[in-house]
């Protein structure tokens, strides 16, 4: 007996515009996110080209600031977040034994808001006065100064927020209500767990960002004084509200990637995940802590001593559950029987690069030392190691892991490994020298720099071009696998375990029309 009502199977463009199918919507999310990745990637090349040497050569400082701002917004809200919502759409119903997402029409809505929001965001660059140039953190009073382009950005953020909240509600409802009989919460795949917690973070954090953005809009246009001392407000108030969203946002970006690592490492170690329960508790602790550490982004604003100390201690604590996760992954590998196909390479690379970012994060947590690191390239290096090193590595790991399942075809393993190694070399070449730049005193968000920073900036620029050009391999591999190639088996990987591998490759339209039994 199959699930009701899938009589209509529109083809062509209307299939994609009106779809209520989790796989189609997952594909839409992924395609959209990679288009945005190209847009954001080009912006990063503009930034790195300008920084190839001291002096102003390519762009005006004002445009440079727009590039850093929009690069960040596009990469975070346009690429990283939608890409993982896409993965959630594709995989969660298949992993928990459901026919589809819990709320399929809303699922389509949460996707289709994105292209419209992205249009607003990109349009801002073409407005008189240009796009937002105050950094992605849009701190007032600077962001009160800009022109109509800033309003485009603010409304785009509102729409992106609505999309994220709707998407998260759907994921929570799916995980809590659509699991196959017998699949208790503590039997769920880690990817579903990390997304459940991420979705909670999103629902708690995005509305707070909406509040901050709303206050900014009224300060800009309706005469309120939230962020103006003359009217009794405080610019730092915005930073508090923003980072109350902003810090959980970091975990929103990395937790699903952790989930991916926890799926892939056991598969290729041919050994069950070590410490499943402690993984769940560690993830939940990280999520909880993420709400009480926000002001570590603001050590230099002049907080009272009690605040500085509290946020230093709470931030340092995050190292404990994060450490537990890394130890668990290493223990999973210990005395396994490992092979190193492309997904495993990306997962291990991701654990490694994330750890670099994690340790620099611990250093940044130390308030007195942070007075030297704050707003330097050390911070830029740190968060790229976290967001590129964990999120993007996790994304590629997931795509290579599940691509044969999605398309029914094996991809070219040799090219996949090339993609991994070239990206890893390029990524480290780009961002590792930035640690030194920051320590030596180079501030972030500057279009021109003093002469002693030249050499490392050169390396960084070379690395950026290297990294981005290497991604062409990925597009080639992905398109090839979609079009054809050797047939994949249902299980695809020898050590793979989980409901998604019991379905055919590619899977049927409604994943589990009949719910599987989980022992």
């Amino acid at each position, binding site marked *: 007996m199959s699930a009701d009502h899938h009589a209509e199977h529109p083809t062509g463009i209307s299939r994609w515009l009106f779809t209520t199918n989790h796989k189609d919507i997952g594909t839409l999310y992924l395609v959209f996110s990679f288009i945005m990745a190209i847009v954001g990637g080009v912006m990063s090349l503009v930034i790195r080209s300008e920084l190839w040497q001291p002096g102003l050569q390519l762009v005006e400082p004002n445009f440079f600031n727009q590039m850093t701002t929009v690069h960040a917004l596009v990469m975070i809200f346009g690429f990283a977040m939608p890409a993982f919502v896409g993965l959630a759409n594709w995989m969660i119903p298949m992993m928990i034994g459901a026919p589809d997402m819990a709320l399929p029409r809303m699922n389509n809505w949460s996707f289709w808001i994105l292209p419209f929001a992205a249009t607003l965001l990109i349009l801002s660059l073409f407005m008189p*006065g240009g796009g937002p140039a*105050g950094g992605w953190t849009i701190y007032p009073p600077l962001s009160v100064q800009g022109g109509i382009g800033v309003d485009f950005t603010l409304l785009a953020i509102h729409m992106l927020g609505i999309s994220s909240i709707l998407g998260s509600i759907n994921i929570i409802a799916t995980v809590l209500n659509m699991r196959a009989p017998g699949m208790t919460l503590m039997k769920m795949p880690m990817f579903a767990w990390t997304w459940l917690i991420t979705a909670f973070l999103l629902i708690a954090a995005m509305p707070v960002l909406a509040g901050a953005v709303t206050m900014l809009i009224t300060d800009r246009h309706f005469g309120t004084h939230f962020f103006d001392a003359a009217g009794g407000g405080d610019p730092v108030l915005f930073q508090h509200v923003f980072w109350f969203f902003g810090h959980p946002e970091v975990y929103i970006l990395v937790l699903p990637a952790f989930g991916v690592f926890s799926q892939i490492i056991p598969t290729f170690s041919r050994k069950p995940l070590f410490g*499943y329960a402690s993984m769940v508790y560690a993830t939940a602790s990280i999520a909880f802590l993420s709400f009480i550490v926000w002001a570590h982004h603001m050590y230099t604003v002049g907080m009272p001593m009690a605040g500085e100390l509290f946020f230093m201690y709470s931030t340092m604590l995050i190292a404990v559950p994060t450490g537990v996760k890394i*130890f668990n992954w*290493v*223990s999973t590998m*210990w005395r396994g029987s490992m092979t190193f196909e492309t997904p495993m390479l990306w997962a291990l690379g991701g654990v490694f690069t994330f750890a670099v970012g994690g340790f620099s994060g611990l250093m940044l947590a*130390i308030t007195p030392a942070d007075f030297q690191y704050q707003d330097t390239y050390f911070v830029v290096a740190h968060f790229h190691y976290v967001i590129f090193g964990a999120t993007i590595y996790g994304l590629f790991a997931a795509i290579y892991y599940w691509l044969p399942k999605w398309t029914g075809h094996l991809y070219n393993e040799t090219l996949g490994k090339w993609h991994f190694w070239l990206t890893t070399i390029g990524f480290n070449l780009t961002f590792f020298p930035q640690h030194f730049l920051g320590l030596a005193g180079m501030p972030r968000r500057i279009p021109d720099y003093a*002469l002693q920073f030249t050499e490392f900036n050169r390396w960084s620029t070379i690395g950026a071009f290297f990294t981005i050009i290497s991604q062409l391999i990925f597009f080639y591999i992905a398109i090839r696998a979609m079009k054809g190639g050797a047939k994949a088996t249902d299980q695809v990987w020898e050590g793979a375990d989980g409901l998604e591998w019991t379905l055919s490759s590619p899977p049927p339209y409604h994943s589990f029309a009949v719910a599987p039994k989980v022992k």
Partner: protein
Amino acid sequence: MFIKLIRRFPGIVSRLILGLGLWLSAPAVFADYALNFQKPVTPVAHRILELHNMILLICVIIFVLVFGVMFYSIFAHRKSRGYKPAKFHDNATLEVVWTVIPFLILVSMAIPSTATLLEMDDTSKSDLTIKITGYQWKWKYDYPDQDVSFFSTLATPRDQIENKAAKEQHYLLEVDNPIVIPVGKKVRFLVTANDVIHSWWVPQLGVKKDAIPGFINEFWTRADEAGTFRGQCAELCGKDHGFMPIVVNAVNPEDFTKWVAMQKDKAAAESASGAKTWSKDELLEKGKKAYAGTCAACHGVEGKGIPGVFPALDGSQIATGPVDEHIKTVLHGRATGKFGAQMPAFAAQLSDADAAAIITFERNALGNKTGDVVQPSQVKSLRK
């Protein structure tokens, strides 16, 4: 005694294990490649460097240990070597151990960090107070007790920035009027901003504090040696964020006293210059310089502005219209709503002579030919 030990703890650890500090000697090995903090010159900056070195070292050790295990496993436990997988997936003891040990390591980091933080926070018993105000895009320094006050702007010539001239050693890190502090004295800084948030950062002094409009933040420093220490604004503050450096001259106390006297003479001369009547050529010459330092950042060296953001002065209604309106715009600012940014008020930043010179320059250069000559007295009368 105990506190003293705790405070020295990071220093002891870092010296014991690192010899004389691997990271400090590294720059000498790599020539141009600066790998760590600039040389600290204050007690706090020293303390921060020691703390940084200690924590970096701990991080590196843990990193090597953990990933050493991982890489050993990658090497030894692979299928291609015929390794058969074990079955275990839990070990309660192990999990408690690797929760507790990191926690203890964190506590050992938190103690010296707290001590350093408390020391940085103590601005009491200072010998000198200096007020810093951030502007887009320059710094203003007030010495309230010495009655000295001046602006400090980027001194690097435009030609170097635009790659039309060779860049000199202190490219982008040089200013017209450096801030001067006496060596060995505890200087208390009060920092605020006039327009948007800036951040006053001099790495070698180990200080960074945000300048927030409408609020005052405090910090202190004490340079232990004479020298010139350079820094930059560290909070994105708009277009020329990268072009508002900080230069601190630490001099011995006698030279500081002399410097204060010199500043007072300069201020007296400046205020006298407002009383006399200037020739057009004098005004144009002074105006050209003042324009470059105060106005060119937005309106451009040639007066072309940036379309949509900053209005052009070339042929603008203000610069070619009634003189009084032009003076009022410069002194009190203007918000038309037509441009992204609004014209700030410059009354507090410009002397009568400077304003008169700038306005005369703008009306007779940058493509404008009104022929008007504005005297300082006319500016003074419109100050309200």
